[in-house]
């Protein structure tokens, strides 16, 4: 009984019991369904063991979409709870768990994986490569992220969710004030996923630096690839800090050390500093790729080359450097005095300059263009003014003395949603729609896509704009309830209405995928948007080896130039292609990490030790393995090419 009790959720409610049943039923249905349709072999051969960057990318995006709806459900619940004063829908504890998981899930298990998914699919294609530098490592990264995310997600049905906010400030996150295993899940699940992300960072830096097609110098890389390069550099510099911080947190929680606690010299500020030294660059990890996506889409649908290519690159580099020297603006109110606050205030505002350069370059990419309002373009255009509002409120927050008034209020919540939603969410939706035909060889419905777009854009503004006002009226963030006398009621109700609009928008998105998969025409070309960069130069769907002949490049929009009487991209004859073999080890390693994490969360040491040995066994297996991949013969390439050209004619 005791054994069973520790897995029970301490603050159980009908909603959680419902979720437990729903999750159990869904898992069972999936297992039975896959068995019934005899798909285990297919899944194993084609997906679980794949090292193909495109398939890994698809799996990232699928997982990210699932997480979007998980985090979205949290969001709707929060807005429903605060829609009216003194609402009793959720109790305080439940609300705290929901906003904590909302933050973690949206940033770490939705935004980042979505971006990493797109970059997995697109980057090797954009640089004319056959795969990433370390395909097997790429699979390991994905499965670590996936099982880390799964571990985090079961927290709300097994043992209890984390409840100290996504920032997990100490001493609130210590065992003393957060007794359930929720914060253990936080420390360990994020650690597992974070290791995967760090490896992705290394993988893509090497890929971009070493595997570009002949002729593609750094200053001829498409803007999306540039943004990915810089993003991965930030990952490699920032994530080790998170790794260390989470390791110290794990020791505090599981082994009774006192790095961040109240007793024995622990310092709560140490956590805050470590968290934000990682956390602020993290914001740019999810924003910079969005800048890359928008650059591609805006130039494609304005039918113009990107304005100010060089200053776009320079500004991204500047942003990446500045992103590491502003972290203290997250706690201006921690009492470091006027001098420190002044310095961080200035470095923070400085970020507005390179960001502003980018905004104007996008505007001037539209100048003398021929703008087509496709769905990806609509998201990109909506991004410009909304993100500007997010940016200027960021400058307002950066003014230290004024921040004493905004800090911890709904004004801040409004600001970062005004940055992150048009910045990241619109971008991944735009990129997803834009690259969809490349991945699946049919387009998503523009008509349904536009319905989704309008509901999402209007719903977003209705949800978050009122928060600027309630924030200035003194509404603190993370309050599960408030009294009618505060006067926050009407604007919070408006926010809830907006959230429903967002919900409808995302429902349209799902419906679009369903509808288009069934009915959209399949006779499109491999370049349906009349685009500019290399990924559109190969077939759709992309063959395993990406390019039958490695392209030769001499501008940042090589494909466009070659279409318009420029030099041919593909010169020479087919040659044998060397490709890596599939492997089941990354998947198995991911599952072992999941078991290890679960054992650690509940301090089940025997399981933890056994699974640790399992992790080392996987690594040992790899180091003794003799796998030199396989070769695709010229005949095979010819056959594939003939078949694909037929489909795309």
């Amino acid at each position, binding site marked *: 009984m005791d054994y069973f009790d520790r897995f029970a959720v301490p603050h159980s409610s009908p909603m959680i019991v419902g979720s437990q049943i729903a999750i159990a039923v869904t898992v069972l249905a999936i297992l039975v369904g896959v068995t019934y349709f005899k798909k285990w072999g297919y899944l194993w051969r084609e997906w679980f063991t794949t090292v193909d960057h495109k398939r890994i990318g698809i799996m990232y995006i699928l997982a990210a979409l699932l997480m979007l709806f998980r985090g979205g459900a949290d969001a709707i619940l929060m807005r429903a709870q605060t829609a009216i004063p003194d609402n009793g829908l959720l109790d305080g504890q439940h609300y705290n768990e929901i906003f904590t998981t909302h933050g973690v899930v949206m940033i770490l298990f939705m935004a980042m994986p979505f971006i990493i998914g797109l970059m997995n699919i697109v980057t090797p294609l954009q640089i004319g490569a056959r795969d990433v530098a370390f395909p097997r490592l790429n699979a390991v990264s994905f499965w670590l992220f996936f099982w880390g995310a799964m571990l985090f997600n079961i927290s709300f049905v097994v043992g209890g969710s984390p409840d100290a906010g996504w920032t997990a400030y100490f001493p609130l996150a210590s065992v003393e004030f957060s007794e359930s295993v929720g914060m253990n899940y936080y420390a360990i699940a994020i650690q597992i996923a974070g290791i995967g992300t760090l490896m992705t960072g290394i993988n893509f830096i090497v890929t971009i630096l070493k595997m570009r097609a002949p002729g593609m110098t750094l200053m001829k890389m498409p803007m999306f690839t540039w943004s990915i390069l810089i993003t991965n550099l930030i990952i490699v510099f920032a994530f080790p800090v998170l790794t260390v911080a989470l390791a110290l947190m794990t020791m505090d929680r599981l082994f009774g050390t006192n790095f961040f606690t109240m007793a024995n010299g622990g310092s709560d500020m140490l956590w805050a500093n470590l968290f934000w030294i990682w956390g602020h660059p993290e914001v740019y990890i999810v924003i910079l790729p969005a800048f890359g996506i928008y650059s591609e889409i805006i130039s494609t649908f304005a039918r113009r080359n990107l304005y100010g290519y060089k200053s776009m690159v320079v500004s991204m580099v500047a942003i990446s450097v500045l992103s590491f020297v502003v972290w203290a603006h997250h706690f201006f109110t921690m*009492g470091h005095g006027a*001098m420190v606050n*002044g310095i961080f205030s200035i470095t923070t505002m400085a970020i507005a300059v390179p960001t502003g350069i980018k905004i104007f370059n996008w505007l001037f990419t539209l100048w003398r263009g021929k703008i087509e309002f496709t769905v990806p373009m609509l998201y990109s255009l909506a991004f410009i003014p909304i993100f500007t509002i997010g940016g200027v409120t960021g400058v307002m927050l950066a003014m230290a003395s004024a921040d004493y008034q905004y*800090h911890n209020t709904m004004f801040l919540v409004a600001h970062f949603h005004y940055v992150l939603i048009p910045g990241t969410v619109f971008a991944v939706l735009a990129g997803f729609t834009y690259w969809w035909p490349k991945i699946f060889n049919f387009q998503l419905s523009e008509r349904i896509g536009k319905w989704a777009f309008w509901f999402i854009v209007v719903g977003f503004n209705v949800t978050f704009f009122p928060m600027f006002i309630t924030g200035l009226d003194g509404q603190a963030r993370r309050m599960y309830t408030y009294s009618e006398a505060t006067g926050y009621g009407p604007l919070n109700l408006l926010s809830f209405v907006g959230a429903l609009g967002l919900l409808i928008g995302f429902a349209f998105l799902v419906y679009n995928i369903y509808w288009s998969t069934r009915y959209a025409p399949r006779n499109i070309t491999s370049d349906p948007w009349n685009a500019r960069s290399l990924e559109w130069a190969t077939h759709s769907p992309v063959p395993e080896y990406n390019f039958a002949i490695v392209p030769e490049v001499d501008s940042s929009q090589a494909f466009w130039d070659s279409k318009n009487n420029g030099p041919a991209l593909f010169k020479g004859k087919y040659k044998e292609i060397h490709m890596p073999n599939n492997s089941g080890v990354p998947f198995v390693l991911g599952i072992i990490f999941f078991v290890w994490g679960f054992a650690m969360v509940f301090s089940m040491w025997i399981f933890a030790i056994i699974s640790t040995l399992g992790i080392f066994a996987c690594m040992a297996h790899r180091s003794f393995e003799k796998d030199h991949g396989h070769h695709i013969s010229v005949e095979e390439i010819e056959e594939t090419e003939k078949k694909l050209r037929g489909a795309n004619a």
Partner: protein
Amino acid sequence: MKMKWALLTIIFSIATVLTGCDNPLAVLDPKGPVAANQANVIMISIWTMLIIVLVVVILYAIMLFKYRASKSSDDYVPPHVEGSHVLEAIWTIIPILIVIFLSVVSVRSTNEVEATPKGYEDQEPLIIYAASSNWKWHFSYPEEDIETVNYLFLPTNRPIEFKLYSYGPISSFWIPQLGGQKYAMSDMVNTLHLAAETPGEYMGRNANFSGSGFAEHTFNVKAMPEEEFTKWVDEIHGTAKKLTESEFDKLLEPGHVGQYTFNGTHLDFRPAPEHNHGASGNGESEHSEHSDHEDSKKADEAETEHQH
């Protein structure tokens, strides 16, 4: 197009709301010099930022209106334009100038709000220790030798120096109409300078998430003329009971309580963690040893001698 109008409407409605006067927003309705300073900075930044938003939105509207595919002829081919050094210099230099301007405003006002409020430099500040515990506020007036729980009486037109710390998770002491917030933490004492100029009742709260009772972690603030304040203190000396250590320990237990008034302060038997971090205005924070750290759970071992 629709979106552009929607945005313009939003921008103008916020401008109207912000400048509206029938029911001003708390932060923009200051009742003391510190909050007034901050409201001033906020309004300067809002107007500056509105100019930028306006420029972007106008350019945006022109681009979308003039260069849409449906307006141009079928054979129009957009030109290849690399960029323009002049234009790019303009949208680099102007933002830099704006950032410099705002930096000056920000640094100056940050120095101001970290010091004794202007015009009050020659007055002796009233010192109040504000300690948070889950989920209460304990206010000690060492000079008056009284302590209140969950409510605060302040004299008007006198600088007040709050000494902030915590017996639990990080809390943030915030009275929006008197001035911005600052953290109360367990291992250091933060100083917050405020002053009230208009008598009245104000909302005070913990703004930093501190666990399940966070939403109700509030306190009432009443500002009154000096004479009235002195009368209130005298009254307490005559009527309230003495704060004992055991009573204080009981108050520290997590939970919500009403308002209390005591003679004596908890500083006598549980001094504030003042041995370090003296950041108070000029940006110098000393990071000394945390060796004699306090832990609310180890009440019995607590040092009884004064440390400040």
